[in-house]
């Protein structure tokens, strides 16, 4: 699966939204309500979907939907 599509699916599951609703500028916390415990769940799901290990710096930098999708695109 395309990494961006995989990440989009993970984001939809974490936020409870449809993939089509997700906009790159959406903040994970403020707009999607993905609190700290769910962020951990998202990162674990993302690692498994992309078959990669997310670095501390990359994990800390993911604040918006666009950040997550861009990371996925660059991980392929």
């Amino acid at each position, binding site marked *: 699966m395309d990494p961006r599509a995989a990440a989009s699916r993970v984001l939809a599951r974490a936020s409870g939204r449809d993939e089509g609703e997700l906009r790159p500028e959406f903040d994970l916390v403020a707009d999607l309500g993905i609190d700290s*415990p769910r962020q*951990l769940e998202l990162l674990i799901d993302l690692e498994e979907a992309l078959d990669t290990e997310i670095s501390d710096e990359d994990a*800390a930098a993911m604040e918006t939907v666009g950040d997550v999708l861009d990371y996925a695109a660059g991980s392929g």
Partner: protein
Amino acid sequence: MKVRGAALPAAAVAVRLLAATLTASYRLHRLEGAGHLDRVLDPPAMLACWHEQLALSLLLVRRRLLPAGGPVSILSSHSADGELAARVARAWGIRVTRGSASRGGRAAALTLYRELVKHRSTLLLMPDGPRGPAHAPKAGSIVLAAMSGAPIVPAGLAASRSLRLKSWDRMIVGAPCTRVAVAVGEPIVLDRRSTDGQREAARLELGARLDDLTARAGRLLS
């Protein structure tokens, strides 16, 4: 300034050695629930106690966890207290992940997850740590259990002679050669399909069990 700068590392080493020697002198007085503790020896698994009991819990690490041969991991904050705890833990051969909810929390929790799942580690879990508030389990502990499938085995520890530090958790430091009693309870097990409600119930149950087991450990000393 040069003298002070040169003295600091030496002081840190001295404190680390003193702390490691002190915790090495603790004696296991009574252990209740040994069967539950065996579950921790089959990693991935988490052994949980309140953060105030961190120093006492090193007795269990030394006597039960490390002899089992698998890796043992712990989360330590970036604070000065956390640095000391990290140095003592490393001296014991424990793998240390640094982080807290306010600094690098996501990444630290992700590292702990990898420790559990990829390294099949036993995680020494302080669910109210690494920076409190005391006796309030954090939801991240429950997410770790749900995502990894690793059981949380709760334990309470008490020392016959001890003092409390003026840290956020009022950490218990046993006197040299103090007797330590341990009460271990039934594991809490979750999986990825668990609902938000089930996870919150598990978080509250973990806190209640740790309070109960801490009280039981105190009674074992009398």
